[in-house]
């Protein structure tokens, strides 16, 4: 099977340890452009570590990361973002005391002019850029939840978890990334809220053609519903790969989850 033509993310032999603990053990992982990949596995199997290594929070102790034809091995978090990879966090990391708009604009960093002269003295041009981005943020969040879009100027800590997740995903999407990494978006939400959020994500994805997603999720209903392809990790290694149907019936996977010897 020749997939190299449309490969977006290509990780080869990714390794990372913490002291004596091997969190990632020579992981190979390929993601094709436009697909939704589910990353599953028991707790501590290295899923979030994989995100952290790819996004440059942790350095890799071995292996390569190639994204969209560029080498991103041991790139800084800033370089990873600029090349078009964004993520959300398991424990939603928002600036709670800032407004919804502010939080979304943090994600828009690479498209905003940060020049000192522009920001301090060209206030007219700044106002134009501000208005343009305000409209854009409004438009994006409206896809998720129209009432939320009318409350862009409220601090994030006044919103419930589902809205915070929506805001967090908008923060990730506002800069038109190529790859979105979702780290357990259902954490802290009810089943129905999760399903609603997944519908939103699918809607947005239709609008932003070509968005590729890797999602870490424990709720198998979510994985079954939205992923094209799944990779199962255990002890930092890939133990199975394929459609959800295939991996869910795989004996290795059942062993990993149930601990059957």
């Amino acid at each position, binding site marked *: 099977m020749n997939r190299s033509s449309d490969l977006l993310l290509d990780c080869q032999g990714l390794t990372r340890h913490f002291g004596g603990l091997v969190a990632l053990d020579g992981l190979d992982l390929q993601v094709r452009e436009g697909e939704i990949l589910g990353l599953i596995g028991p707790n501590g199997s290295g899923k*979030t570590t994989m995100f*952290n290594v790819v996004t440059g*929070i942790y350095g890799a102790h071995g292996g390569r990361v190639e994204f969209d034809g560029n080498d991103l091995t041991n790139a800084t978090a800033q370089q990873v973002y600029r090349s078009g990879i964004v993520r959300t*966090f*398991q*424990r939603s990391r928002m600036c709670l005391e800032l407004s919804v708009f502010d939080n979304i604009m943090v994600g828009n960093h690479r498209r905003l002019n940060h020049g000192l002269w522009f920001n301090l003295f060209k206030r007219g041009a700044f106002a134009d850029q501000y208005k343009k981005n305000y409209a854009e943020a409004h438009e994006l969040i409206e896809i998720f939840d129209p009432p939320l879009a009318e409350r862009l100027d409220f601090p994030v800590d006044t919103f419930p978890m589902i809205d915070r997740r929506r805001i967090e995903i908008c923060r990730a999407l506002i800069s038109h990334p190529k790859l979105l990494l979702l780290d357990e978006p259902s954490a802290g939400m009810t089943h129905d809220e999760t399903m609603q959020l997944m519908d939103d994500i699918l809607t947005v994805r239709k609008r932003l053609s070509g968005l590729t997603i890797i999602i870490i999720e424990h709720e198998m209903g979510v994985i079954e519903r939205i992923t094209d392809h799944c990779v199962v990790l255990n002890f930092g290694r890939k133990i199975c790969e394929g459609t959800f149907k295939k991996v869910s019936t795989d004996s290795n996977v059942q062993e990993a989850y149930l601990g059957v010897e």
Partner: protein
Amino acid sequence: MDIGFLGQYVVNGLMLGMMYSLVAVGFTLFFGVLDIIKFSHGDVLMVGAFAGLTTFFGLEAIGIESAWIQLVTIVVVSCVLTGILGSMIGKYLVLPLKSAPALNTLLITLMAGTVLRECIRLFFPDGSNPKPFPSLLPSESYSWGNFTLRLDSLMLLIFGTLVIVAISLLINKTKLGLAIRAVAQDGETAKIMGINFTLVVIVTFAIGSGVAAIAGIMNGLYYNEINFDMGLLLGVIGFSAAIVGGLGNIYGAILGGFLFAGLQTFGAVALPFASAYKDVFAFAVIIMIMAWRPTGLIAERTSERV
């Protein structure tokens, strides 16, 4: 340079190092259990020294003249008093701010220190002037050439060492120490395992503050003088020592304490034309060490979950 002269510097440096280490141990204990810096620590030390002085006056007034009884009473009374003071600061100022930004805790304890300092200055009789501290230790000394070893210095050094050994035994070998280490490792889990978190924190604050009182009395006995603002510099130095060693690690604190004293002594010896610059030198080196090892020489365990 003359060997005897150098020996004098070494003894003086060891003495300073001992005091700094005792202060630094307190900082590191507080940081261990709560991840906070209790900046009033230096002023608690000063209160300890003044409590000792007051006890001395009290004992004199009721006619107890024996230096040993006086000494033991002074140490016990001022340790207990500062222990109570430290745990009250912990309970009423530090614990309520547990979930606030670290800056707030730093500030509230800095201000608590200012309040203590000002209270002594304003309300202790003639508190704004240095107070003579009685010399209660034997004043014999032994001389070898230029080198003079005072018996009281030797006793203070031995006593300080014993205190440090006692603290490390307490932390490593007792049930209380186990509880303190459990809270330091992971407060939430320790709570679930049935450890009384608040109590452990308060007891730790009491222990650390008691040790500071000992450092304060040592300071008084060594220099025969105490001052309302002695705690400020000692506190900052103790803090530097704890940080340079690596917060949360008792051995780091001791290492840092002696390192700082070593730097000051070295500054005084090596810059004979400008020995007044010894503190400038010591603090400059501290800043450089921080640039080189941002989390101290014995690095703090960091585990940020993402």
